[in-house]
């Protein structure tokens, strides 16, 4: 399951599907909406998605992760968009592996690259009535300004 969706994330089903008899380690990452950001009190979030491209980029991130760590047996990623409240999951990732080392680095790779390359944008709505789009300056991967073939991987 690799998906970009407006629906709340069904984490229980993802957890269930992450189990694999060949795996000794299942790691999950839940990105949850925090109640504060840079000392602003956050009331609510909204994510905008360039939906078809976000789906494709998410699939690319997972494919590259599996290429780098071929021992990973299962990887699932669901990223939600639209409005969500504090403590709700905006992204949920599971990684299942025979051994824990691969699961740790693979999971880290996925969340780090989602934050670089998957076209989703967060707008925070603060308790004081203000709101702001987040465009982190370190959030883009300049590699993507060049063709994949040009890059020495």
């Amino acid at each position: 399951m690799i998906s970009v969706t407006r629906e709340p994330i069904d984490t229980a089903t993802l957890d269930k599907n992450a189990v694999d008899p060949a795996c000794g380690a299942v790691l999950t990452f839940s990105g949850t909406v925090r109640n504060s950001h840079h000392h602003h009190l956050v009331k609510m979030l909204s994510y905008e998605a360039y939906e078809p491209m976000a789906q494709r980029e998410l699939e690319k991130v997972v494919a590259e992760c599996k290429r780098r760590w071929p021992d990973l047996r299962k990887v699932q990623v669901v990223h939600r968009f639209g409005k969500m409240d504090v403590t709700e999951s905006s992204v949920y990732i599971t990684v299942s592996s025979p051994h824990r080392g691969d699961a740790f680095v693979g999971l880290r790779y996925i969340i780090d690259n989602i934050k670089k390359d998957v076209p989703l944008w967060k707008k925070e709505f603060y308790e004081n009535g203000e709101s702001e789009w987040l465009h982190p300056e370190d959030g883009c991967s300049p590699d993507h300004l060049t063709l994949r073939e040009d890059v020495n991987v």
Partner: protein
Amino acid sequence: MSEAILYTVKLFASLKEHVGREEWVYEGDVALTAKELLHAFFDQYPDLGKLRIATRIAVNQAFCHEDLSVNPDDELAFIPPVSGG
């Protein structure tokens, strides 16, 4: 006289909010590269400031080389720095 070339580019997040529309249309006489199209947009909206150097262009739902020549039939989008996760 050559026919005008029309590029229609999807906008997201603060770009969309700043422009007030979901798409930006560029009309010109000659085909542009990805980089030239980005420059044309940010030249028109100088208040977008630092987003100029951080925004990428996507062609047919994939990031592309900045020297790629862009086709009016391509699906185009400006991708400001993302903040998923």
